[in-house]
């Protein structure tokens, strides 16, 4: 583009954000544009910086769970789970089977809720209004179950190191299986509405391509990496928790374009429903929900641990250094959105300004997690 200019002209610098509605939060991009084309892009982050990692050093372990809720605020359960799993690994705690199944089911439901919101905003970025209504409708259904389980729609603080806070309500299993079959239907509905719509195809196919090599170089994980054709999923490549007990597929894209990243997430929702159904069948009806011998304020032994789990956005990792006290000496978070966002620069080059919104949307970033 820049090479084939008929006239000698200068690039124009345009600010996008931080209050732009399509940036999904407070995120600013500086674009150098040549007419309709983006020559260079520079993302600026940090508007939502709260210093979570430093705050964690001053909080007791049970209090840190409340901070983790607020990182990726669309996948709260997944964040809590990662911290709890890492702590359990550090302290070698055996979690009761029932509690582990409950946590797994809630996390998979949270994945669907997060992808549903992605589905909605992706449609909205392409200019369609209905998907966002439908996406939020389905997400609300899931959140109502979360409210009945943990007492909160979003900031749950429900998982504990060694189990869960309290047992689930009595009709929980029936409610979840009802919800799973409802979701199965509505995922098909949502899929029918948007995926093969001609306008949407024109807007998203071959837009914002990311090759497998580039994706690996940038350290991209999660659906964005799998859309580029690399079947890397922490759930299967490094199975944590009970994931080796289920039969499910890892969808993989071909081109690594915006449409692939979208369609892959829709397919992932179906796989999550599949996992939930299997987990409900295997889950024991009775049993303890908390491991024995874990104190209210845990003091893990001296040492360090890293554990990564598959969040809706990619590999979410927690690295904890413990000095044997009731607070961590250092806690490092590997947020998938932050790493995925770095690839934006490569993806935006030589694309249209109007497509930048689509490309950013297809990365599905959450700025609570990017800025921490």
């Amino acid at each position: 583009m820049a090479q084939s200019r008929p006239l000698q002209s200068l690039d124009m610098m345009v600010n996008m954000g931080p209050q732009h509605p399509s940036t999904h939060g407070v995120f600013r991009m500086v674009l150098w544009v040549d007419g309709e084309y983006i020559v260079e892009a520079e993302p600026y982050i940090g508007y939502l910086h709260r210093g979570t990692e430093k705050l964690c050093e001053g909080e007791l372990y049970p209090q840190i769970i409340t901070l983790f809720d607020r990182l990726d605020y669309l996948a709260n359960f997944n964040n809590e789970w990662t911290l709890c799993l890492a702590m359990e690994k550090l302290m070698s705690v055996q979690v009761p089977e029932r509690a582990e199944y409950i946590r797994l089911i809630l996390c998979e439901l949270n994945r669907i809720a997060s992808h549903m919101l992605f589905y909605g905003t992706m449609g909205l970025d392409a200019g369609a209004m209905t998907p966002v209504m439908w996406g939020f409708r389905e997400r609300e259904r899931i959140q109502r179950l979360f409210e009945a389980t943990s007492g909160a729609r979003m900031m749950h603080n429900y998982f504990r190191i060694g189990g869960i806070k309290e047992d689930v309500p009595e009709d929980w299993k029936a409610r979840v299986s009802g919800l799973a079959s409802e979701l199965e239907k509505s995922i098909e509905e949502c899929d029918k509405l948007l995926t093969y719509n001609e306008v949407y195809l024109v807007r998203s196919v071959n837009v914002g391509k990311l090759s497998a090599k580039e994706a690996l170089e940038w350290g991209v994980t999660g659906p964005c990496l799998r859309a580029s054709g690399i079947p890397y999923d922490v759930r299967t490549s490094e199975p944590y928790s009970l994931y080796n007990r289920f039969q499910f597929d890892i969808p993989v894209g071909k081109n690594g374009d915006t449409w692939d990243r979208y369609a892959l997430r829709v397919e992932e929702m179906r796989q999550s429903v599949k996992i939930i159904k299997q987990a409900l069948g295997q889950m024991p009806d009775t049993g303890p929900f908390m491991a024995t011998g874990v104190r209210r304020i845990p003091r893990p032994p001296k040492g360090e641990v890293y554990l990564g789990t598959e969040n809706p956005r990619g590999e979410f990792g927690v690295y904890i250094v413990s000095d044997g006290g009731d607070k961590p000496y250092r806690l490092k978070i590997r947020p998938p959105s932050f790493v995925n966002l770095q690839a934006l620069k490569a993806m935006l080059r030589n694309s249209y300004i109007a497509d930048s919104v689509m490309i950013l949307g297809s990365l599905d970033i959450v700025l609570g997690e990017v800025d921490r």
Partner: protein
Amino acid sequence: MLNSLKGLLLTLRIAPRKPVTAEYPKKHLPIQDSYMGFPVLTWDSRIGEPYCTGCMVCVRMCPTNCMSALMKDNPLNKEGKSPRKKIIEAFEINYGRCILCGICEEVCAFDAITMSHQHELGSMARNGRRVDLPRLLELGKLYQDESGWRPPTEIEKEKQAALKTVQASAAAGAIPPPVVQPTSPPQAGP
């Protein structure tokens, strides 16, 4: 073209469905029973005093330091009316800071603080959401009445007692003990 028409047909088919939304200030969607709203203090109506003894465990465990408490000697205890030696004198929660995590309720050993269903306590003043002891108890009584609240430790005691009787009768051979069979080898954890 064909796929767009298909999508349009789908929209038309779904259009006559009942809306799932509610016009908010006029109509409220139902709150789930286990909903955690703002924390309130409970009232022991048998004795006529709050459950709270001001032991400060919730104050110390609060992640946002949103509350403060002050303890005093219980005058009712001297008269022999109450088993509590100490009682709360002043308690303040800043609802503007509270993050509704439920840790205070979890750590309380006296059933004194509970998460109510209150969630619409807005204020126009900067410090208008600082709530003192009388107001907290008032909100607590409201919650206790509407939800049929009972002290969690009492419920737990009853559960344990029921379990014991079941076990005792099982040992006597009256009822076979409940069998818990794990469906797969008990290996949880990472």
